[in-house]
């Protein structure tokens, strides 16, 4: 795999510099650590700090924005940021109303964010966290907290960001973000691997005519490897698995994200959406809003995931609040 890089060891720091340069109208880089900070942020609210390993762009740094994250703490490729990075990033944006961390539920992230929270506590800064575990293929339902966070992160960031903007207190923002997390399921399919810059092995191996359901965004083993199917069959299977995990009833309103893992095209994902919409229609489920995009990638991995967020009154109100960043903008309703 050819990569457009200089020295593999400099990838993350050079990319962050370039990213923040490019969006200097919106962002600035933390002077000491790999943190992306929103420039003109509101100062009278709970600070929302997101983050995790790099390599999934635009997740997480690309979801810093108005009504979204106030800052993102960025680790090396596929590795959690260290507690120092998280701590400094949070300190740079906190406004004495506390800090909510939203991140994907991975062992490394949990350890490092927990440690950062302890450091903040020592400084008298209130903080708490919501771990996203939307990938319902990554562990059985009775081991929810073993599940991984994937593209559904975005919905939790959106809702948490809106809750912060609405002026809610830290515990309320946390409760709301958890409500979003608990009403959310994702599952994906992979057809080809991504590659970490500087490593010569792809994240996994797969035959030319095969695909794998439920694979994680770092190449973690999925639930079933099979011959390549039609996108209609795949979509049906993915939707079926989400429904098996979360009750979706006629009359429910949902938000939907079809997320590309890197090299899968909007053209292909649009065909998947077409089928998903047919299935949702048949179930009497109403789509409130939806997106087709590559928001949470695994380098140039092939494949996509479906995320479904079930709305209630409160979530809907927050979802409908406007937000803006260069990669994700909602006008509000």
């Amino acid at each position: 795999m050819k990569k457009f890089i200089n020295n593999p060891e400099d990838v993350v720091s050079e990319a962050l510099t370039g990213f923040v340069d490019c969006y200097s109208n919106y962002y600035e880089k933390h002077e000491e650590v790999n943190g992306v900070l929103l420039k003109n942020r509101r100062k009278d609210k709970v600070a929302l700090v997101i983050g995790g390993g790099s390599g999934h762009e635009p997740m997480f740094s690309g979801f810093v924005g108005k009504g979204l994250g106030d800052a993102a703490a960025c680790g090396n490729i596929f590795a959690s940021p260290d507690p120092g990075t998280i701590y400094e990033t949070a300190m740079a944006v906190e406004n004495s109303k506390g800090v909510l961390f939203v991140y994907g539920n991975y062992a490394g992230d949990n350890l490092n964010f927990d440690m950062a929270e302890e450091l903040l506590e020592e400084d008298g800064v209130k903080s708490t966290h919501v771990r996203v575990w939307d990938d319902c293929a990554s562990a059985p339902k009775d081991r929810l907290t073993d599940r991984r966070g994937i593209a559904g992160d975005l919905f939790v960031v959106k809702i948490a960001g809106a809750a912060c903007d609405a002026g809610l207190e830290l515990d309320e923002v946390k409760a709301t973000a958890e409500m979003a997390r608990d009403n959310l399921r994702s599952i994906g399919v992979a057809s080809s691997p991504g590659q970490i810059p500087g490593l010569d092995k792809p994240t996994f191996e797969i035959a030319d005519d095969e695909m794998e359901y439920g694979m994680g965004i770092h190449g973690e083993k999925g639930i079933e490897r099979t011959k390549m199917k039609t996108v209609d069959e795949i979509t049906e299977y993915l939707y079926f698995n989400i429904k098996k995990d979360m009750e979706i009833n006629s009359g429910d309103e949902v938000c939907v994200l079809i997320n590309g893992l890197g090299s899968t095209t909007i053209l292909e994902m649009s065909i998947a959406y077409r089928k998903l919409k047919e299935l949702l229609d048949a179930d009497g489920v109403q789509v409130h809003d939806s997106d087709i995009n590559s928001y949470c990638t695994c380098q140039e991995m092939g494949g996509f995931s479906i995320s479904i967020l079930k709305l209630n009154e409160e979530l809907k109100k927050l979802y409908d609040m406007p937000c803006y960043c260069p990669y994700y903008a909602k006008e509000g309703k």
Partner: protein
Amino acid sequence: MENLNAVQAKEMIMYIADKIIEAKPMLTEVDSAIGDGDHGIGMAGGLTKAKTKVEKMESPEDVYAVFHAAGKAMLMSMGGASGVIFGSMFMAGAKGMDPVGEIGAEELAQMMKRSLEAIQERGKAQVGDKTMVDALSPAVDAMEASASEGIVPMLTRAEAAALAGVESTKNFEAKFGRAKTQGTTIGFQDAGATSVWIIFKSMKEYAETH
């Protein structure tokens, strides 16, 4: 060596750092076989920071402060699960201790024991989960059992126990770590456990010669 004083603690950390940096290619290879191959880079990076940090402590007077500073430097720079885990190995047991100019074998053993507890508290890994705990836990047991014999014999036993622990990881299936491989991990040793062994080996070597 009868006791370990603060200056020696500093030199010991620097010696460990050199040995881990030397072992970087080997650790990379071990992690590549069943993990994502970044363990050598991470450990070498973390211990470089630790070394730089303690090097700056001109004439340290508190043994615990040296270990704490080294661990914190690792913790605050490495990222990933192993940053917290290996940072804690040096830091957690030293945290909150009253300053002392030197410590004996018993104190060293107790420090490592507290670190092990913190690591298991944070990381939730048990012996048999194919992690660095598989090397650290028996090493701590060995230290406790032989602390009365003095620092060098104690570290000699600890190194042997850690090495046996590394060997044992070949029999286990991995449960932790972000980039699990597709196939089985049985037959392969754990990268973190390997680092633990190198750390004890280096501690012993330093103690033997000072």
